[in-house]
């Protein structure tokens, strides 16, 4: 089986998550060896996934946790009243 670029793109997400079967993985790996476009698409997609997952990108609003637990305390007090 020869696979083309479009076919590789369809599986990029599953490939990154290690969810393609061994046979398909082998075909994709072989394609990647010679296709610089698909290699760059794969590397950039993986890079984007890693960057957005960093805790620095999405931070809780300042004081969120404190306010939440104060609200819980109010609720617990009124619950036992």
């Amino acid at each position: 089986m020869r696979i083309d670029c479009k076919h590789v793109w369809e599986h990029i997400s599953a490939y990154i998550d290690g969810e393609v079967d061994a046979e398909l993985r082998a075909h994709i790996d072989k394609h990647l060896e010679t296709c610089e476009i698909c290699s760059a698409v794969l590397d950039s997609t993986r890079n984007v996934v890693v960057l957005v997952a960093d805790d620095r990108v999405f931070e809780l609003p300042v004081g969120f946790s404190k306010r939440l637990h104060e609200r819980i305390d109010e609720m617990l007090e009124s619950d036992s009243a």
Partner: protein
Amino acid sequence: VPSPSNPEFEAECIRRILAGEKHLFHELIGPCERSIYFLLFSLLGNEADAEDAAQETVIKVYQNLQRFRGESQFKTWVLSIARNEGLGRLRKLNTRREDSLDAGIDEAGGDYTPAILTSWREVPLEALEREELGKMLQAAIASLPAIYRNVVLLRDIEEMDVRETAQALGITEGAVKVRLHRARALLQRELAPKLKGFAPKRKRVFGWGS
């Protein structure tokens, strides 16, 4: 701090809370806070509503605690309550139904062709020290259709597995995978051309070797 999603800790905690040690609820909910907030933020689109809905969610979790049967992970159950809270608010506001959150949009066609590049230099995590990069990533996530944004948030940002994500969002595992794939493709297309400027400069190699 208890380790996140430890089923024994959670079960013990719930048992003791229901038996009267109510203060333990603080510890039970702690590991879920971040995910609750960001799921709601991804649904509601602004900090104030997300925070308010997060507080309401936590209260509902407490009030319904005796109903948790341990059939799913505690966090998954909590997030499904958060999702219902968020969807309820969206319905009430009847604001921009930017896209139906449960419709068969997965079958709809669309262009998920990636940005075509011929080389890629990795952008290291240290680049996140630059505020503009974080802002760019946030904006890209915010611009995704909500059904894709939710999935990226739980899978890639909160690192939940496919099964938990499906349960929390009330969709199939297949839909999680399709949406995640499309979301990542859209993010790559949006971000890859812009991210190039954040990669370290290539070292000059001429004059060396051979």
